[in-house]
């Protein structure tokens, strides 16, 4: 087993054994599920909504070149600037250089998974900029020096008591009590100062609207609005796949994203932003930059079989639906994107060699595929990744030989009978020791006692009689 796989197993095992962790996750996901059922019920036909969203995203992804150019042209018309980054380093360097050139000291950020993907914060901090995460969940995990636990609910793994303890330590002067409301108020006080002193605001984007050159940003707390309104520079860091063709597409995408993400009818602030303030506007940033990140996306785009992974709208529904995620938690994956979508996406973006094991971290129950609001068949992609790993010779030699042997055995009735009899003798003779090669499976399971007669023997004796 490679180090990466062993570490994944160790982290997963630790979380599975952690009863208090499981309790917190179960509570959070049960609450989410109740809300989502109500959210979906607001649609006349949820399946029709999924189909429409699938079509909108399919159209955009399959004509990505056209829409990207249109988006860039419209951003330029608005006085904004688009920078194309092939990888994480180019994206981070651009933002850091921009901040340096404009004399920026502190930066407020609204939630962006693409920024997590490129580790922008650590790059900016290493250059001496003060970076504030302003989404409450992100702020909490930033104070804990942890990555987000969940793409929509970053602090899902923490209880109110955990957060109260953290705030008492980190922002004692702002904490006036430990109720949910008082903790939110403490973060509000602390971050309020940040919003009004920062020179740069960084946001992600939920969608990029090609026909207007605007970004669509969904935020409940209002931090996304403040980050993009108060500081004098607004930088959007996002992936090239977030494009949609028309403003009109949001009439379905926005309510579907809200329903699948949190069960709301619409996120409190569903916002379109394009360009710096115009001459006739009274406030807003003086500069507007959009960093479009590739980082493996165009390579995935070339694979027509798995291309639709780029249609993902990052609602987090598949994470909440996944029995594996519920048990091992978000941090066990050690990737930016966790859960089923992460297990399908990461091997494609960052290589099968190091990340294929994630595509095996699934029972293939298919719940992820059935909840996906843009109809990505995630379970199927996990299988495709497994197949690709086999075809590229990236599986352990022992597994390859074992599977070949299995196939050879199964292809002939007599061979199957002989091998079966031999296996029975081995198990009777050596007992549990015989299952040693299957250790990960047999470690916590006992082998049932071998029946006296095999199925074949029983069939010969009874089955044929009844057939007559």
């Amino acid at each position: 087993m490679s180090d990466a796989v062993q570490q994944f197993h160790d982290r997963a095992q630790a979380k599975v054994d952690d009863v208090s962790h499981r309790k917190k996750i179960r509570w959070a996901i049960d609450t989410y599920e109740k809300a989502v059922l109500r959210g979906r019920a607001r649609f006349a036909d949820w399946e029709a909504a999924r189909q429409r969203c699938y079509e909108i995203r399919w159209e955009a992804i399959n004509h990505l070149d056209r829409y990207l150019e249109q988006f860039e042209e419209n951003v330029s018309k608005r006085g904004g600037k688009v920078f194309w980054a092939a990888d994480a380093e180019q994206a981070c360097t651009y933002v850091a250089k921009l901040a340096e050139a404009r004399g920026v000291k502190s930066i407020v950020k609204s939630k962006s998974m693409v920024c997590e993907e490129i580790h922008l914060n650590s790059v900016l901090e290493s250059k001496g900029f003060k970076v504030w995460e302003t989404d409450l969940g992100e702020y909490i995990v930033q104070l804990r020096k942890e990555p987000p636990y969940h793409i929509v609910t970053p602090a899902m793994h923490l209880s109110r008591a955990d957060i109260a303890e953290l705030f008492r330590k980190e922002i004692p002067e702002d904490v006036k009590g430990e109720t949910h409301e008082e903790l939110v108020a403490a973060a509000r006080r602390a971050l309020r100062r940040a919003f009004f002193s920062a020179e740069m605001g960084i946001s992600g984007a939920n969608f990029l609207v090609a026909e207007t050159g605007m970004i669509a940003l969904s935020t409940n707390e209002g931090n996304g609005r403040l980050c993009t309104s108060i500081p004098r520079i607004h930088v959007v860091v996002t992936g090239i796949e977030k494009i949609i063709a028309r403003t009109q597409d949001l009439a379905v995408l926005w309510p579907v994203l809200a329903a699948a993400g949190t069960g709301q009818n619409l996120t409190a602030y569903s916002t379109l932003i394009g360009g710096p303030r115009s001459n006739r506007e009274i406030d807003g940033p003086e500069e507007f930059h959009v960093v479009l990140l590739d980082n493996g996306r165009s390579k995935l785009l070339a694979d027509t079989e798995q291309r639709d992974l780029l249609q993902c709208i990052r609602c987090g529904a598949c994470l909440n639906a996944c029995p594996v995620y519920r048990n091992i938690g978000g941090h066990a994956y050690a990737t930016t994107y966790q859960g089923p979508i992460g297990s399908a996406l990461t091997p494609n973006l960052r290589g099968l060699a190091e990340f294929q094991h994630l595509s095996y971290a699934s029972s293939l129950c298919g719940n992820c595929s059935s909840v996906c609001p843009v109809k990505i068949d995630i379970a199927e992609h996990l299988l495709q990744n497994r197949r690709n790993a086999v075809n590229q010779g990236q599986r352990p030699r022992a597994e390859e030989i074992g599977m070949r042997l299995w196939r050879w055995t199964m292809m002939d009735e007599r061979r199957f009978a002989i091998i079966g009899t031999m296996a029975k003798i081995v198990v009777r003779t050596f007992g549990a020791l015989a299952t040693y090669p299957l250790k990960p499976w047999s470690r916590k399971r006992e082998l049932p006692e071998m029946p006296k007669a095999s199925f074949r023997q029983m069939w010969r004796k009874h089955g044929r009689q009844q057939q007559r």
Partner: protein
Amino acid sequence: MAVSSSDDRGAREQILANVRSAVKKIAPRKQVAVARPIFSAIEEDLVARFRTEAAANYIEVMLTENTNETADTLRKIVESLPAGEVFMQDTSELRAMAATATGERVVQWSSDSGPPEASQAAVSRCEALVAMTGSIMVSSGNCGGRGASVVAPCHIVIASSDQLLPDLESAMARAREIAFDNSFVGLITGCSRTSDIEKLLVIGAHGPRQVVVILQASS
């Protein structure tokens, strides 16, 4: 400095070339035979539907019959707020109301500056209201700027019932119309809120914890 040069667009050509060559082959498309309606048609009165949806989003809606009543309603809300200045969008209509509605308070007008951090309330107009979702559509050009609706702890919207749109389809069509005249167009569907701690809803995160729509019947 590289970032200020307009022709430095990074790896543009390389990325676009990769994208172009990738999408030469179109991916298979899952077809579904019947197109069914996604949302139920809105049959009730738009004002009634808006009130129901807005209430579910923690938005207060107050109905008025004429400008005097609107000004009076505004005065009552402003009186209930803690001491401090009020930020107002500068329109002749709101100037007229402010004379009676804001009393001794300092009023910051949008023609002078953006919303001050310490303001107790922001008063603005809106672009439209959306009945289906109980949303308020605002823009940077016509509703007091970008920050007005999110900086103060209370946002008061002065609207007229002829601004009601039935659904998101019509709302996004309107957003499209005004997209090129504004650097910001937003739908506000409720107070600022968070459920980041134990999935428990808390009203009033970074933005307003009170949103009031004074909805005047159109003459």
